[in-house]
């Protein structure tokens, strides 16, 4: 679960979360295409994409002269795993507590 630490940092910035959302909707895109869908410069998009790729949230591939970025939903599995585990634990606990009080 070490990966969560990097995801946390990467997703702590609202612009980067917006970028992930846009990328998830558009599918594989270049930094130039993404900057057209967001109110920030291509350079700023490229900087955020680097942070997201360090966290494994996006991957980059070269197509001809373009670099395309792709959202990798699998990178969120650690977070989803934590959420499900903790949610299940509290569901059982609150059920038991209610039975205790009935």
């Amino acid at each position, binding site marked *: 679960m070490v990966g969560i630490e990097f995801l*946390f940092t990467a997703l702590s910035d609202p612009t980067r*979360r917006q970028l992930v959302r846009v990328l998830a909707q558009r599918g594989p895109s270049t930094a130039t295409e993404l900057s057209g869908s967001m109110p920030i410069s291509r350079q700023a998009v490229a900087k955020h994409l680097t942070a997201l790729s360090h966290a494994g949230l996006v991957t980059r591939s070269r197509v001809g002269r373009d670099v395309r970025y792709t959202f990798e939903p699998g990178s969120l599995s650690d*977070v989803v795993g934590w959420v499900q585990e903790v949610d299940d634990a509290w569901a059982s606990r609150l059920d038991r507590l209610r*039975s205790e009080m009935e």
Partner: protein
Amino acid sequence: MTDIAVERDVLLPASVEEVWSHLTDGELVSRWMGGSVVLEATVGGKIRMTASGAPDVWGTVEEVVIGSRLQWSWRTDDGLPALVELELHPEGEGTRLTVRETLLPWQSASASPLWIGRPSAWFRTSMVA
């Protein structure tokens, strides 16, 4: 704060006082938490839960407002630190208990909550909406 969190609530057919004792009395807490719990319900007090087949979870009580609010931070030895917040509100003849467990960040960051609710809702609202 970036929040990765789980939130649940339950309406209990009991008074706030009765629910509060079930949150703070080690013997009563152990009946429903899923392990044997040692809890010092005072700020800076220790919490430890031991269950067979699961690693020990231990931590520190962060906030106590009698009959209303209890918070502790905890983790397993090799697990992720999290903050547990329990809140009580009288509702009708019973008590509404709200639980929120939030993954603690490794760095302080100023941002709106990343996600509150169930995982599917998070994907819908934050990731692809």
